[in-house]
């Protein structure tokens, strides 16, 4: 498919979401906002998993750090409740990046399952800090935020806040898209496919991976800032292992290496978990069923459905696509 028609579809979908979301009920807006925040987190992970081939199980750590920074600044210093919100966004993004810069030094040396384990351990460290460092994080009680920022426009209004998150989401998508299309992004894909070859070609693969790791951390931190204000409450439960696993599953569900896949995955997971669970008691089976079916029959994720349909229509072979990376992990 041409990248132009692809972009048109994506823009169309985004416009549709932006127009439809405010017309759902008050709870629907909240859910879509949450899905968008998680979509930013999932896309940040996709940069690692889908484009660089690094399966991180600690992405929730950056979300947590961003969220706790926002909450602590807001409650202890009343900072970030006016125009300074934008400064908090910058700070949250930077602290995500800074943490990733430290964690990256430890994690990047490993690959595959070992990378998975190290990121998991680092993620748990951050969780432990949130849970145990009572004087700063409030421990298990978490932190209640005093309210959303107000600077001329009131973010306390859910629709307004939705549009703010929506803009951040679109901006993140655009930035990450530009990034993966750039020569840097291409070399990341090269590393994913065959790191040794890239090294022989003279690329500093460690540095490439390290930078990708930091960028992913930055977007994770951004998601954290948005997350704190979306919920009005930050808790160690926000950065438990489950959140990291969720992010990973969102990417796999939507299709790794596609960016939009992570966003779609986030939408599906939030819909099934938070909305279906209010309707039926068997939502967990639905969620589990979707995971299993996608992994069994759509290893390329939901984004590969069009290709699958085409294949089924023509009865022919799959057009040459990238191999199904997930198997390599």
């Amino acid at each position, binding site marked *: 498919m041409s990248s132009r028609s692809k972009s048109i579809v994506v823009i169309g979908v985004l416009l549709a979401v932006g127009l439809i979301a405010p017309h759902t009920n008050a*709870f629907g807006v909240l859910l879509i906002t949450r899905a968008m925040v998680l979509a930013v987190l999932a896309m940040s992970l996709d940069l690692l998993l889908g484009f660089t081939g690094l399966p991180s199980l600690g992405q929730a750590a950056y979300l947590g750090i961003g969220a706790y920074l926002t909450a602590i600044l807001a409650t202890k210093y009343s900072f970030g409740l006016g125009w300074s919100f934008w400064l908090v966004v910058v700070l949250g993004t930077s602290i995500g990046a800074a943490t990733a810069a430290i964690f990256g030094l430890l994690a990047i040396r490993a690959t595959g399952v070992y990378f998975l384990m190290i990121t998991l351990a680092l993620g748990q460290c951050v969780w432990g800090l949130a849970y145990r460092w*009572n004087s700063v994080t409030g421990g298990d009680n978490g932190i209640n935020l005093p309210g959303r920022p107000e600077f001329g426009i009131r973010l306390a209004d859910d629709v307004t806040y939705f549009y703010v998150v929506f803009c951040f989401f679109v901006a993140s998508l655009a930035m990450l898209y530009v990034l993966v299309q750039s020569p840097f992004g291409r070399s990341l894909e090269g590393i994913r496919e065959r790191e040794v070859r890239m090294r022989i070609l003279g690329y500093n693969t460690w540095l490439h991976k390290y930078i990708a790791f930091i960028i992913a951390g930055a977007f994770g931190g951004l998601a954290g800032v948005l997350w704190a204000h979306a919920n*009005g409450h930050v808790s160690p439960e926000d950065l438990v292992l489950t959140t990291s696993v969720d992010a990973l599953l969102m990417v796999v569900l939507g299709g790794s290496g596609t960016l939009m896949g992570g966003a779609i995955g986030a939408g599906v997971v939030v819909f099934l978990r938070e909305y279906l669970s209010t309707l039926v008691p068997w939502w967990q089976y639905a969620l589990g069923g979707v995971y299993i079916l996608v992994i069994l029959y759509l290893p390329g994720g939901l984004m590969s459905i069009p290709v699958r349909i085409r294949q089924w229509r023509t009865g022919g072979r799959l057009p040459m696509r990238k191999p199904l990376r997930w198997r390599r992990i």
Partner: protein
Amino acid sequence: MTSKSPRRTGLMLTGGFLAFAVSPTMTTGAAAQELIVGFIAPMTGPFAQVGKDMVNGFEMYAGQVKGDFAGAKIKFILEDDQARPPTAVLKAEKLIRQDKVHLVVGGVLASEGYALAPISTREKVVYIPSVPASDDLTQRDAAKYPYVVRTGWSSSQPTHPFGEWACEQGYKRIVAIAADYAFGYESVGGFQKTFEECGGKIIQKIWPPLNAIDFGPYIPTIKQDADAIFTLMVGPMSLQFPKQLAAAGNKKPVIGGGTSYDEFTLPSMGAEVIGHVSALQYSAALDTPKNAAFVKAYRAKYGKVPSYFSETNYTTAQMIHEVMKQTRGKWPGADEFVKLLASVKVDAVRGPVSLDDMRNPVQNIYIKKVEKKKMFGYDKEELWNTVIKTYPNVSQFWKYDKETFLSQPVYSRDFPPCKFCE
């Protein structure tokens, strides 16, 4: 690939979001004679048992009055929070925004109470923490949460008298081992305060994380020269800890918070817990005609003995009913409802319950001992929490002056400081 296929993806996506948009349209305004209760309880996860007991309790009362609260038809909407604060927050938002509930009832963990209370203030909706015992909801933060009325208890309420009781038993040196979260700190804190004031010493505090099931790393560190062990376990922890403690050869007396011996865990427990003593505002073995009738009816309906989680929600429903009687089934508005509920006095299953001026119950605290015996005419020997002493009309401030008590910080991992820790 042609350009056809992505368009199809786009259509599907839009379709998905449309489903999102269209389905939640069943929002309805409340009918005049309808009382919509949003109930938050864990239906999945480690606290699912607790959640079932909570729902059973409330539903049993509603069933007994045939869903008719003095003319108001009760509409009960249950949401599963998995005992996780962020989920509880989201579910409360759903109940308030989409279902337009009059009351939000429930939550389990102390941390959930702290997370849900600000929503009640923000949305001006009554929140009744029937289970979350977080002290500050009705103490230092009570002014911040004008729409919170507690029908359950505060964490340190039973452990204040329990500390004195421990002194009376002649215990001098006690090791505390408790779940590492607000409820644990506050329960231990209350116990430590009164126990040390009458001459006892807490010589060690151990904090295993909430939901720990392997106590192997903690049990061997318990000081051997202690007179007794104070435990505070919640949910599945309460089943594992006594077993592992007994397996480690413990001979010391074990005392603890009431949730360590909830009635729904007793049937799965063995001889290892016999003789353990705990304190709470309810015991299923409470020997009053009212409780006997409650236990029998509950057991006939749900096939198990009610725990305090059942009783507290049964009583919550009863108290809501009392308010509705005064308004003749009309919803009086959140502010008025809070006022009325705060002045309700009921003769509850657990004993007389009234609320103090910070909207926390004043009620009996029972010291109870796990015994194997027959009760209420059941022909099998079972484990029961036999009441061995009653402290009547205990307030959350115990014998202290309210102002003095509130001027100290909330009980935490570091308060009261562990002066005698070795």
